[in-house]
């Protein structure tokens, strides 16, 4: 054969795109965070803070504001399925 088609060099980005079409490979779940307590500063509107404080005061048993906020967070996490 005297005449052949010009050889085609496949660009690397086309090869990468072909590879990426494959399904992902299973990877191990990230390790759970180490147990402990971390301080997280939270920006909060003063009006909202006043409402929270009124709710804390309205509790039949006196609890710290921090505990009330944690309870609220846990309720939302449970409600949202986390």
């Amino acid at each position, binding site marked *: 054969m005297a005449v052949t088609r010009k050889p085609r060099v*496949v660009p690397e980005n*086309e090869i990468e795109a*072909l590879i990426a*079409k*494959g*399904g*992902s*490979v*299973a990877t191990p779940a990230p390790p759970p965070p180490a147990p402990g307590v971390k301080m997280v500063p939270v920006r909060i509107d003063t009006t909202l803070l006043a409402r929270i404080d009124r709710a804390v005061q309205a509790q039949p048993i006196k609890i710290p504001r921090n505990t009330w906020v944690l309870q609220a967070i846990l309720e939302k996490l449970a409600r949202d399925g986390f």
Partner: protein
Amino acid sequence: MIIVVGGIKGGSGKTTVATHLAILCAQAGWDVLLIDADDQETATDFTILRNARRAGGAGYTSIKLTGPAVRTETQRLAAKYAHIIIDTGGRDTTSQRAALTVAEVLLVPFLPRSFDVWTLEKAGSLVDEMRLANPALRAYAFLNRTDPRGQDNLEAAEVLQDTPALHFLDTPLGARKAFSNAAAQGLAVTELKPPDGKASAEILTLFRYLFDRNTTAKR
């Protein structure tokens, strides 16, 4: 030669075939690298067992790779080994695609069962797609764990000849206990004592088909 043992159906015996090819290459005197690109990592577990059971070690080198690294690392290591065998999982993953961009041969085992041969079309589509990046890729289908009797083997063989993307190899491996007995000891069936003549003959036929025709021996 770079051989991928792949496909898109799990449980078809890919790891058994890949590990046997690696062992037979090593016994033939070639430097061989077995790449475990299957997230189940069974080939790696087999190699750990084989290294522990044999005084001389596995006889081949084994590494684990996933994703696009299968392409880049295989390209980097190709010059150091006479042959590279890549065991991929039974899914269309980035690992398998990356392997197919650099492979010379894709070997796809099929069980003689409907659910298995029904995946032939998808396997053929994958081969066609990967040939855009690797036009020289040769793809072979063959029957694994064939029945000792009955029509299913013949019927499955007929189906496997339906797609032009994969060439059907008439080199079946039977459903023989010798393969699982050997695997449990970190051995190939050719190394069992007492030997299983039929299982050994079958795997050697497949091995010779692949390597006698396709290799320029680099021992």
